[in-house]
Structure formats: C-alpha cells, structure tokens
C-alpha cells in the first residue's frame, strides 16, 4: 500500500514540476470552450443548449493531453523496469499512475466545469449536472486512455496514433455523460438512469483499463 501511495505521490510531483503537464489539460479545456463560440457565433441560447456537449467534448480531448507520456516517460528513463520488478503487481502500478493522471486532468476539469459553464451560459442546474457527470465519467476516459498509452509506450511520436486508438472507445462515455447532463435539465429521462450507466461504464473500464494496460506493458517488453 505504501508503495502504491508513493507512486501516486511521485506522479503528482512530476506533473506539477518543470516538464510536467499538470495544468495544461485545464488550459486546453478553456481553449476548446473559447473556440466553439467563435465557430458557432455568440448566440447565448444556442450555446446554453449545447453547453454540456461542448464541455464534455472539451473534457474528452483534454484527457488526451499528457496521456502519451503516461508510461512512455517511465519507459524511456528505465523507471518502468523498476516498477515491473517491484513486488507491487503491475496492475496496481497502472492504477496508481492512472489515479495520479486523473487527479491532474480529470478532477480539475470537473471542478472547473461550473466556471467554464458561465462562458456558455449554463444555469445552476446545468453546471451542477456537468460537474457531477464529469466527476463520474472522466475516470472512464483515463482508464480507456491508459490502455492506449500502454500500447504506444514504446512508439516514438505515439501521440497521434494514441488518439486514433482510444477516441472511438470513448464514445459510450461521451454519450451517457452528455445525456445525463441534459436529462438533469429536464426531459423525459430521469437524471439517475444515464448517470447509473455512466457509473457502470467507469467501473467496467476500471477493470478492463488496468488489466489491459498491464497486459500491454508486459507484452511490450
């Protein structure tokens, strides 16, 4: 357990210091939310209607930031070999790194969503709904991303191929995230139904993501 926590702490420190991509995801998120109105026009009614979708697409794309370095940086400097050789199972190593990555990309997005919601004229319920769905759904994005990151760990310039591999797999999370956020703002579907499915997706990807990424890292040697 202490090794697990040490690994989480190490990754958090690395992302906060020089060369880390800790806050870049958040800045990128802000960029996307800013760009969309320039493309669509400043119509606040329209922006408010599609606001949850803009924030969710922003979150999906922002998750990709730094994802290609999740295992690659450790692969290059040899620390991944040390982690593989340590008594900690590789699955837990993956889980620790995914948690650290989520704390620096997913969690800030969920917390900042109300603030960015102001830019797209979301009301209070909408902001809360987007925040809650991002909190529940972004771990799934990181877990799916971890499989892709593990597969491309040894590929130079793996960033683009990583995006191509993982984005199709993120579609279900996006669908249920946005439909839960929209359901909270009224409609025939109760908020709970898509939210439960979103939570289920997160739990399933937590298993598939850690086991799959660990398998990919072992096979990549």
């Amino acid at each position, binding site marked *: 357990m202490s090794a697990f926590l040490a690994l989480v702490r190490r990754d958090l420190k690395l992302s906060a210091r020089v060369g880390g991509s800790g806050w870049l995801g958040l800045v990128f998120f802000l960029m996307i939310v800013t760009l969309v109105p320039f493309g669509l026009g400043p119509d606040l009614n329209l922006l408010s209607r599609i606001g949850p979708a803009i924030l969710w697409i922003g979150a999906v794309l922002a998750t990709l930031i730094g994802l290609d370095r999740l295992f690659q940086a450790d692969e290059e400097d040899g620390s991944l070999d040390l982690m593989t050789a340590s008594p900690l199972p590789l699955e837990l190593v993956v889980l620790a790194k995914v948690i650290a990555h989520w704390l620096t990309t997913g969690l800030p997005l969920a917390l900042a969503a109300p603030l960015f919601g102001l830019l797209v004229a979301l009301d209070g319920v909408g902001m809360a709904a987007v925040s809650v769905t991002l909190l529940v759904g972004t771990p799934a994005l990181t877990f799916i991303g971890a*499989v892709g990151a593990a*597969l*491309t760990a*040894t*590929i130079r310039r*793996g960033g683009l*191929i990583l995006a*191509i*591999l993982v*984005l*199709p*797999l993120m*579609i*279900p999370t996006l*669908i*249920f995230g946005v*439909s839960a956020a929209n359901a909270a703002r009224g409609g025939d579907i109760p908020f709970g139904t*898509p939210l439960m*499915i979103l939570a289920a*997706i997160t739990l*399933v990807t937590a298993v*598939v993501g850690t086991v*799959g990424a660990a*398998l*990919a890292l072992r*096979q*990549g040697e």
Partner: protein
Amino acid sequence: MLTKLANPSTFLRWSGALLPWLAGLTVATLGIGLWMAWFVAPADYQQGETIRIMYIHVPAAWLALFLYAMMSASAIGTLVWRHPLADVSQKAAAPIGAAFTLVCLITGALWGKPMWGTYWVWDARLTSVLVLFLVYAGIIALWRTIEDPSRAARAVAILTLVGALNLPIVKFSVDWWNTLHQPASVFRMDGPTIYPTMLYPLLVMALGVTFLALTMHMYAMRTEVYRRRVRTLSILEAERLDERRLAA
C-alpha cells in the same frame, strides 16, 4: 492435429491446395447469388429496384462483424499460445474487415439517398458501423506503426480484444442515443419477416460473400507468411554481409 496443420510450412502446403477450390466455390455461389438477386428476386413494391442494393449491403454488414470476430479469435490465439499463424491471421483479417465495413457504409449511403432522401443520417446502426470502421482503422494504424511483427501482433491483439469488449457497449449506447433505422428483420425470435423470394437470394449472396472473404483471407495469410520469410531472409543476409565485412 491442429498444431500440425498450423505449422506455417504445412499451412502453405494445404492452403495452396485448398485455395483454388475455395475460389471456385466463391465464384459459383457469388454467380448464383448475383443471378438470383438480379433476375429471380422481385422488385420491392415500395422500394422498387433499389431493394437489390440489399443483396450487397446486408452480406457486407455481416462480414464486417464476422471478420472482427475472426480477428478476436486470432487475437486470443496470439496472446495465449503466441502462435505465429494466429498473428498472421489477425493481420490478414483487418484490411478485409475494414473493406467490408466501408462497402456496407457506401452501399448504405447509396440506398439511403432514394429511400430516406439523404446519404447519411446519424441513426444508431449507421453510427455503430461508422465506429466499427474507426476501430478497424485504428487497428490497421497500429499494425503499421510497430516494426517488429510479433510485438505488433501482441499489441494489436490487446487492442482488438478491448475493442471487442467495447463494441457491444458502443452499440448499446448508440441505440440509446438515437434510433431511426428499421429493426432487425432476418434474425428474429418469431422467424424472418422478409419474403422467401427475397430471403433465399440474400442467403445465397451471404454465403457467396463469406466464401469470398475466406478466400481473400487465406490468400492474404499466405502473402503475409511469405512476407515474413522475406523479412527474415533479408535480416539474415544483412547479418552475413556484416560478418563478412568485419572478417575482411
């Protein structure tokens, strides 16, 4: 028995003997199927002659899924038994599956224009097939990125299996998201709702297209085995030249 047949050299021998028969069977069933689709099957009372697109469109959709299933089975063979022939089968199936998915999308668009008045709608089934195509594209891209064939095979196998777990979820979520396409009409609990005059040509076409896919798959596997031999031989040749230069 199976392990013996799966030895690459043995595979080249028996597949070489089987291939002409398989190709002949393909030509025969496809010929009969096309003849039935063009001349035996009636035009639909609502859709007219455009119904004949179905005889390509539906088999292509079946094959798109069938080849993904075959790829997943080979992926298990790669990961569990590390069998080189499973790698080869996986690699050979990917472009064929992607091609059938594309055929399904294009014929669907051509059929959609006269029927729905538009080439593309964001309906559940169309969208699922588009996602399937994207997954195929990712798999082919990963094959082309990793140079060492057996490492590439293991990476692709993991991606294929994760995709296989994910595709039903995609299907389910896209169904939730939107539906406009007609519900399934051949495989149903209460029997087919399509007239036998249209069902039989469709089944013959499906059989013919399946034989076509199997023929192409076997041919592609043979090509891949040869390609790997050429790769190994050129590496050996380069090493030999290197040694000779060092000796001189």
